[in-house]
């Protein structure tokens, strides 16, 4: 018994530029990701998911919740505003420190958490962003994947956070659907295969996304 939880954190850019079709596509993508994951018995047993959104501030939109208990309202984007990715990372660290259970000699802790970050721009709080990265590294994530969505997303900043950066050419429904499908497959693989030693292996990328 004593099942390990697999904590999954998703950081979503909700800055002004995401307003309109992009944020609708993100919401649709999230919903189909949840239903796909719920149909996977491995994920259903282990995955706990948290969503942090960031624009002019960072919010814990969905606290770490088991898959089957997630009821999500649509995420909204404000009319305009900055992209405080650094603040989001700071909030993430607080959440991880609070939520992720370490093993003790008497109780089984969680798997190393997974982190997915999606942004369509670049961090407005670059100083905080850069200062937080070493702290993120100390949290020992199982894997960190960043998604640079659309033409204005700055991949170079994201590469300071992780070597795994994928780019979406456009901010439309097909692109986000593809991205969340891939996130869902990665999480499913993580929940089924965690621990074999090849936990870093991610599934092949869909054709809509270019590396």
């Amino acid at each position, binding site marked *: 018994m004593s099942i390990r939880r697999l904590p999954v954190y998703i950081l979503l850019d909700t800055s002004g530029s995401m307003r309109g079709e992009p944020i609708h596509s993100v919401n649709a993508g999230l919903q189909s990701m949840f239903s796909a994951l719920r149909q996977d018995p491995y994920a259903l047993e282990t995955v706990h998911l948290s969503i942090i959104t960031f624009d002019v501030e960072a919010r814990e939109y969905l606290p770490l919740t088991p898959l089957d208990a997630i009821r999500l309202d649509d995420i909204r984007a404000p009319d305009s505003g900055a992209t405080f990715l650094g603040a989001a990372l700071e909030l993430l660290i607080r959440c991880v420190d609070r939520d992720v259970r370490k*093993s003790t000699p008497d109780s089984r802790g969680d798997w190393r958490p997974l982190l997915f970050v999606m942004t369509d721009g670049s961090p407005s709080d670059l100083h905080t962003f850069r200062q937080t990265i070493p702290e993120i590294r100390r949290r020992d994530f199982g894997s960190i994947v960043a998604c640079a969505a659309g033409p204005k997303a700055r991949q170079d900043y994201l590469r300071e956070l992780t070597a795994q950066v994928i780019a979406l050419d456009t901010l439309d429904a097909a692109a986000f659907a593809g991205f969340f499908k891939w996130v869902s497959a990665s999480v499913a693989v993580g929940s089924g295969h965690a621990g*074999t030693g090849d936990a870093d292996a991610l599934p092949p990328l869909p054709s809509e996304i270019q590396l």
Partner: protein
Amino acid sequence: MAKVVTCRTVDGQTIAFVDEIIGSGAMKDVYFSPDRSYVVAFYKSPQDDLTRERLQMIAGRYRESIFEQIGGDYWRNLFCWPTAILEHEGRLGLVAPAYPGHFFFAHGSRNHDMLGIRGKEKQGKWFATASLRNRFIDPRELGDWRGHLFVCLRLARAVRRLHMAGLAHSDLSYRNVLIDPSEGWACVIDIDGLVVPGKYPPDVVGTPDFIAPEVVMTSHLARDDPARRLPQRETDLHALAVLIYLYLLYRHPLRGGKIHDPDDPQRDERLAMGEGALFIEDPHDPCNRIRRSDVRLTDLPWADTDRLPFTLTGPYLAPLFRQAFVEGLHDPAQRPSANDWETALIKTLDLLLPCPGSRCEQKWYVFDNSTQPCCPFCGTPFPGLLPVLNFYSSRQAGQFRTDHHRLLVWPGQSLFLWHANSLIAPNEKLAETQQMPVGQFVFDEGCWSLVNARLPDLMDLATQTPVPLGGRLALSDGQRILLSREDGGRLVVVQMIESK
């Protein structure tokens, strides 16, 4: 409408598929034939010559050696075996039968299919985890405990057949076995990973939960390192034992409370499944027992090994679990063979009692040799008169020795040829005429009797009275009954239990 593509297999058959992916795994994209009777699966990436050659042998020689023999049709229900390979637009593909309808959820999950899994494949994991069963799966999908024993029997039989042919599956897991507990079916899929010992190196290590400890322990070594242990027959046997334990007890035999490394979950997992693997019900070492503090409410009662210990699986299966998870856990040569499991499962099915408890989810349990039998799952006692037939068979004229095989008599129970003769086993070799009952048990006016349907030699030995076809023999305690005078013919000693 997607277009239909027609092409030729390597051996020249014409096949067709609808150009629309119906499923996609890590390795392959799958397409339906226009009539949906078979599927075509194309590898996503180019495959080397060795793989091509291996697939050709699996779809060719090995398939023929199993299917194109007397009784070969029997295996069509137990394997989804590739029938041909093909090449189309530079992609390597294989043709395989579509899964039968009973391997797709008819009802799916609870609360009007809250998970949306109706129509999806019945992956074994759904049925092998107490909390998934308790929280999500529609009770109509769950079947009863007897159905689960049949699932295990068919699975053991399929693995036995592979091993008899010198093959090993190499990746047995609940992903690669579809099951239907409501009807007791199991079907081994993903046959394309088959390994032939000494011939083709396995290209997988297996699926977590099912990888044998010696493979986990050496998986960090290079493939050609002499100390590296790769999947083979003995690792299949570990996976088979784990599957049977999971399908009967809905908990994993090695996932207990012991923490091997509090700082690194990956390493902790590797040790728990490898070097430090320990049976959660080990009779000598209790340190990996499931801890109450780790158990979720929805894991109960299955997580409580004191309440539902593995010994409830009875006198034939429990010793095999001990052999697989105590003696054989770190000593592959000691693991029970698929044939051992098959035989034990057949005998266990004869030892089942129906539970009269109207709320009992398992509905069947193994008789524990008690004079006051009681369902271990729900606690309901067995009511009334219960005849137990103990089988003896003759190895030399006039001398009968116990077969350690019993049949319990309950309303609706029948006697079959494989009970009357020790040389006959209920497996793929049975002809259709051999599958008919040879006797029927009836309960009338407070008395159990055996109605002779097809036993020409049936006789009560105390009175030396033959029982003609169509005749009735009342059963009583201590009675000895001859079932057959043929070679391997059996004698029965009746014990009568009267529960209070």
